[in-house]
């Protein structure tokens, strides 16, 4: 045995304290995840209703043949805006790096993309590469709230209307379950090309003739910003749930690994102790033999 018993004991103690930390982090992530999962569910009724109403109003605007608001107009340009959602903190397995990798690929394809960054991890990464951002948001905390989404939505809305870019895509991590999440692109603007997932099929008859108060255009001017905010908020919440799920899994693996390491070290500690005892016995027996002869 190369190591002395005392040395092994010290290593075990150090790994045990690390394990305590990873276990605590796992439990914290699990508790927060439960809350965030509820938030994911809570956004759905609002979002679905909004999607249906938006489809109705868009169809009505098309039928009316009037000049539609700028925000609703379809654009053919290829100037992109990418909204990248990452976490502020690491220790979440491959969560952040997966998002950043997808963003890099997107940038390779469309080098002139304007970026809106959420989360310190993406910001630090792209800063090192001397990328500039349209806007950056860090320290959003563990409970995404609609006001944060409204801030981001406002920026996107203004720049889109001022013709700074033609399409807006959110890059986020979809939460499927605690261990499975998928990095996804979700196109929001132009509104006519929004991600099909953002345009749930209406359960009501699409032919229902609505009265628009004061007018279709004015209704759209209210509904579209609400829709952009909601799409961002939904993505923020899903991304947060994925982050917490990833952290929980990463920390559980770390705790398990620490446990295995401790088991192995205990084994070698016992072996070392046994070796010492055997040696002592051999010495005593050897001494006794010497006396007898």
């Amino acid at each position: 045995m190369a190591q002395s018993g005392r040395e092994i004991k010290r290593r075990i103690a150090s790994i045990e304290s690390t394990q305590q930390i990873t276990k605590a982090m796992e439990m914290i992530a699990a508790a927060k995840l439960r809350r965030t999962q509820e938030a994911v569910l809570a956004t759905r009724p609002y979002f679905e209703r909004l999607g249906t109403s938006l489809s109705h109003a868009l169809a009505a605007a098309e039928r009316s043949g009037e000049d539609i608001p700028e925000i609703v107009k379809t654009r053919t340009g290829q100037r992109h805006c990418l909204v990248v959602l990452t976490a502020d903190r690491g220790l979440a397995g491959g969560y952040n790096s997966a998002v950043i990798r997808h963003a890099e690929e997107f940038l390779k394809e469309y080098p002139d993309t304007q970026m809106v960054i959420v989360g310190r991890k993406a910001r630090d990464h792209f800063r090192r590469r001397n990328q500039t951002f349209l806007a950056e948001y860090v320290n959003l905390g563990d409970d995404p709230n609609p006001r944060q989404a409204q801030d981001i939505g406002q920026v996107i809305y203004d720049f889109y209307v001022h013709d700074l870019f033609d399409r807006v895509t959110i890059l986020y991590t979809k939460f499927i379950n605690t261990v499975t999440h998928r990095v996804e692109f979700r196109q929001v603007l132009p509104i006519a090309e929004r991600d099909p997932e953002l345009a749930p099929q209406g359960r009501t008859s699409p032919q229902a003739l609505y009265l628009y108060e004061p007018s279709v255009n004015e209704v759209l001017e209210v509904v579209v910003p609400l829709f952009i905010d909601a799409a961002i908020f939904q993505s923020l919440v899903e991304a947060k749930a994925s982050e917490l799920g990833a952290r929980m899994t990463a920390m559980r693996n770390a705790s398990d690994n620490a446990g295995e390491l401790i088991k192995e070290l205990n084994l070698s500690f016992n072996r070392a102790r046994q070796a010492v005892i055997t040696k002592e016995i051999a010495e005593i027996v050897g001494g006794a033999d010497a006396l007898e002869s």
Partner: protein
Amino acid sequence: MSSFRFEVVTQERTVVSTDVEYVVLPGLDGKFGILADHVPIMAALQIGIVEFGPRKGRRRKIALGGGFAEMHDNKLVVLANTAELAEEIDILRAQRAKERAERRLAEKRDDLDFTRAQIALQKALLRLEVADGE
């Protein structure tokens, strides 16, 4: 008088889901009322007060931070930016928000987002007004 379903939903939660006989909404061109069997309507709403209730009985109020309303099949849904029932409003918080907004408007700094501060003030005043009736 017949009743209909009334819901107010924000991104985070359902604020109200109840049967009512009338609802008064803050439309862009002024207040308007909705009764049962209204034709399908979609209306843009501004920051203002939503009132609703049974015809004979307690009238309830919501402070609405803008949004829009949709009525069809005798069901009225308001999708709101923010919405708070009168009894939920934290008066002290609203008071602080009001003072903050007023201070910001008074400072007249160059980087001031004027519209935003104004909207904040409007919302705070509205919340105080709605809570006052309780």
